[in-house]
């Protein structure tokens, strides 16, 4: 029987005696399309409900069913919820990858496997637990065709027993997961309970890892970044959404459809929004621009290949000065790349997206909270500056589950920018669309449908003068481009400021952005605790860079710019902005594996460059 499989091979020894509480990573290896997502979510929630900080990261294939997928749950009492490189507890459900997964573990890790896989024969420095899933599931699930799906819930019960996760919390999580499907909930609960009971009766806990109740998650929520962004856009007053499905951005709009259908239907039963699935990304951004020109708060969500396709239209929006919000949920390029893996690889191309001297505003959310809060910021900036605003999220943030404090209701009012009404035109007599009246580079616009004989102007991507008339004159062209540059300079004072965290008399600065934040935060503690290296940290939140970024670089001898791409894209962008003598202070820690950046990789590279 199974238990006998684990008892020998004491050479893993010693591990069993040390207690490691609320600090571990659990990896579940399954086949995609097998319903494992529900089981993973239940396990994640159960730990969360016990008050332990937790995160879940799904590493999945670009495929519908039948290929390997891994889900990593990290529980950490200190609140480190970035990816951890090492796996402490492997749940091996996939025969295809079981051997390789097992061989890649560090000594002392635990492996829970399906009995027929006989993984215990592979190594003698791991702790093995074997479970006859098919037998257990057959007993609790009479319907043979459901067994494949329910089987995964059995491991949740086994893990709960082995890691001391309370079954009452597992039940609560299952009830939440299958909220409206009572039968499914009961069936899954029975499966989890059977797993738990089996483990209790047959397995002897030998690993060092324990989940114990603490109080670090009270009041918190669990949500993925795309859902948070969808909510943010709804509360930002977005009215037109056009999109073309692309991983990893599709769920942003799909979730938004659900929320909008529930909360944005007027008393007459009609929608206060329009959401249109376009024929491609070119049409999606074209519709965003048409709608923005006509006065809607319009947006789309896409990923790298879509950004590339949108290039020509982005230049049109820049030059005609049309607002719109583009969410880029970055994935690995170039080309199709790794569609289901994360990166920060679109920074440079988006900053200058399109031909000619085009520059675009970008925002960099690092958390689900910022996916929510930066949505109204993005729409306000887009309308205030009459330009596209790109929100640079990524797959790790967008598609994975993160815990967070509940979002705060937006307090900044909706700012529709400089739009002239009929009454304004009555007073002014007329206007010049591209004239810099206020000295901030931002002209006044009118919306189609404004009933005034002087309201119309001719929006065009070709050369134009202040009055929006066609012009090929050298001075008109140059004046207009200089004004556009002034507008971009004005934006520096209005985009979200960076977040600065200070160390103790640090000479070294770290600059990061987006999801690199989580690895950086943990790495700074490692640097301090393990190497006595103090660091200050600046987290970029927007491009163009604000004054604080320059000051931060001036204050430090060496700056490490941490990012998830090959070519140090943000560092390159920053260099263009800096005084030449400051550029030599910048050093790059750029990683691109498709996996979320982990703290250890940053620590190792930084200490090596510091000669530690």
């Amino acid at each position, binding site marked *: 029987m199974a238990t006998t499989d684990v008892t020998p091979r004491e050479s893993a020894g010693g591990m069993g005696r040390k207690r490691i509480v609320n600090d571990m990573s659990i990896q579940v290896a399954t086949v995609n399309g097998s319903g494992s997502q529900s089981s993973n979510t239940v396990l994640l929630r159960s730990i969360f409900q016990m008050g332990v900080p937790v995160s879940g990261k799904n590493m999945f294939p670009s495929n519908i069913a039948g290929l390997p997928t891994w889900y990593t749950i990290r529980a950490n009492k200190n609140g480190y919820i970035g990816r951890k490189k090492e796996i402490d507890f492997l749940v091996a459900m996939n025969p295809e990858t079981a051997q390789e997964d097992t061989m890649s573990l560090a000594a002392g890790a635990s492996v829970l496997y399906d009995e027929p896989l006989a993984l215990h024969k592979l190594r003698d420095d791991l702790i093995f637990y074997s479970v006859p899933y098919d037998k257990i599931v057959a007993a609790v699930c009479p319907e043979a065709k459901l067994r494949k799906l329910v089987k995964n819930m059995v491991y949740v019960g086994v893990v709960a027993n082995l890691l001391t996760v309370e079954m009452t919390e597992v039940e609560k999580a299952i009830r939440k997961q299958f909220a409206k499907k009572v039968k499914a909930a009961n069936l899954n609960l029975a499966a989890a309970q059977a797993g738990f009971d089996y483990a209790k009766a047959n397995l002897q806990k030998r690993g060092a890892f324990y989940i114990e109740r603490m109080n670090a998650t009270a009041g918190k929520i669990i949500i993925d970044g795309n859902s948070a962004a969808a909510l943010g856009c709804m509360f930002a007053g977005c009215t037109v959404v056009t999109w073309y499905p692309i991983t990893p951005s599709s769920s942003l709009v799909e979730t938004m459809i659900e929320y909008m259908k529930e909360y944005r239907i007027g008393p007459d039963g009609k929608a206060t929004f329009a959401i249109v699935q376009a024929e491609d990304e070119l049409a999606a951004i074209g519709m965003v621009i048409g709608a923005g020109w006509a006065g809607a708060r319009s947006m789309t969500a896409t990923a790298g290949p879509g950004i590339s396709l949108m290039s020509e239209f982005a230049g049109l929006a820049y030059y005609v000065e049309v607002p719109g919000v583009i969410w880029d949920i970055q994935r690995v390029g170039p080309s199709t790349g790794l569609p289901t893996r994360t990166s920060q690889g679109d920074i440079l191309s988006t900053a200058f997206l399109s031909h000619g001297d085009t520059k675009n505003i970008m925002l960099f959310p690092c958390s689900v909270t910022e996916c929510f809060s930066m949505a109204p910021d993005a729409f306000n900036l887009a309308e205030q500056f009459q330009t596209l605003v790109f929100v640079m999220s990524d797959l790790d943030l967008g598609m994975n589950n993160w815990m967070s404090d509940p979002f705060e209701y937006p307090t900044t009012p*909706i700012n529709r920018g400089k739009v002239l009404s009929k009454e304004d035109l009555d007073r002014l007599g007329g206007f010049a669309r591209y004239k810099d009246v206020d000295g901030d580079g931002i002209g006044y616009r009118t919306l189609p449908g404004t009933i005034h004989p002087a309201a119309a102007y001719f929006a065009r*991507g070709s050369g134009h003068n202040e009055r929006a008339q066609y012009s090929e004159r050298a001075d008109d062209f140059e004046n207009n481009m200089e004004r556009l540059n002034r507008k971009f300079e004005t934006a520096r004072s209005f985009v979200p400021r960076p977040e600065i965290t200070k160390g103790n008399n640090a000479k070294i600065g770290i600059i990061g952005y987006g999801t690199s934040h989580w690895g950086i935060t943990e790495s700074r503690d490692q640097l301090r605790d393990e190497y006595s290296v103090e660091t200050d940290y600046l987290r970029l939140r927007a491009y163009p860079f604000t004054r604080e970024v320059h000051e931060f670089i001036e204050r430090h001898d060496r700056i490490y710019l941490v990012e998830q791409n090959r070519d140090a894209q943000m560092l390159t962008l920053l260099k263009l902005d800096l005084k030449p003598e400051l550029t030599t202070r910048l050093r790059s820690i750029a990683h691109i594996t498709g996996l979320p950046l982990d703290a250890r990789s940053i620590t190792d590279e930084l200490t090596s460059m510091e000669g530690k």
Partner: protein
Amino acid sequence: MGTTTVEPGAATPGPKTNRIGLTVMDYKGGKTTLCAGCGHNAISERIIESMYEMGVQPELLIKPSGIGCSSKTPAYFMSRSHSFNAVHGRMPSVATGAILANRKLVCIGVSGDGDTASIGIGQFIHLMRRNLPIIYIIEDNGVYGLTKGQFSATADLGSKLKTGVVNDLPPIDTCALAIQLGATLVGRSFSGDKRQLSAMLKAAIAHKGTVMLDVVSPCVTFNDHEGSTKSYKYVKEHEETLQDVSFVPHFEEIAVEYDPGSTVEVTMHDGSRLRLRKLEEDYDPTDKIRAITRLTEAHDKGEVLTGVFYVNPEAPNFMDLLNVVDQPLATLPDSVTRPGKEVLDAVMEELR
């Protein structure tokens, strides 16, 4: 940019005004920069007339366009209307976005044969499918003018360029495509046929779905020579007219009754009537299959077939399918577009 306005209802005898009190001058545009004799200029004139006669409020009209000679023409009509000269072949998406934002707008999208049938064929096709309330006009000369005379995808098989190059690929029939894909008022006209084009444009304004008008418009500089099938001479010699098209707007008394035996009358969404006096005995403009068959025959015979090929004023348009509020989305108040705090609280509670 706007010309001087005439107060509606001004009683002093002055220039003739339309039903909303505007003169034809209020519908004029800038001076054309196209070649003298260009068919496009005649189309702009017909647009001005029909908008004036239908009493369209100029500020409620938008005129998006793509790139090319045709797409420059919105500068030459109706300066009191907003224009958007967008990117090559992508006017349909810009027009779509604008109508999504403000369904009160009347939209006339101007494109050319290159802008539509070559670079823009993808967006054209999907615009037709949606049946949005948009008038899509192709000013069709079979040739790229701004780049000096290359063939476009509507050039007929065997048609000859000035340089002597012969087109050996079959043309795309934009009307047949539009009918098949879902446009609900589809016709072809000729820039030189004032009466027919004017009646078709007025019907287009009255229609509440996607209108696709292919207007053959000879390019006097690059495609008006012997051997061209889009020259004035060729069209005049080969034009076959399906019907005698006339239009009675809803605000006018019907002066002449029609003979149901010889004339098809279509009542438009706003109560206007489109009258098609049959010149071909058995043609039924509500029969898609017949329309496509007839267009195919025309190609085989080398005819330039004009008239209203297909009309269906009853089909649901995209804005109705989307169930969007009646007011423009663009100007909904914040109180409507930003749900209250209690909504956020409820969502947060679910996520705990």
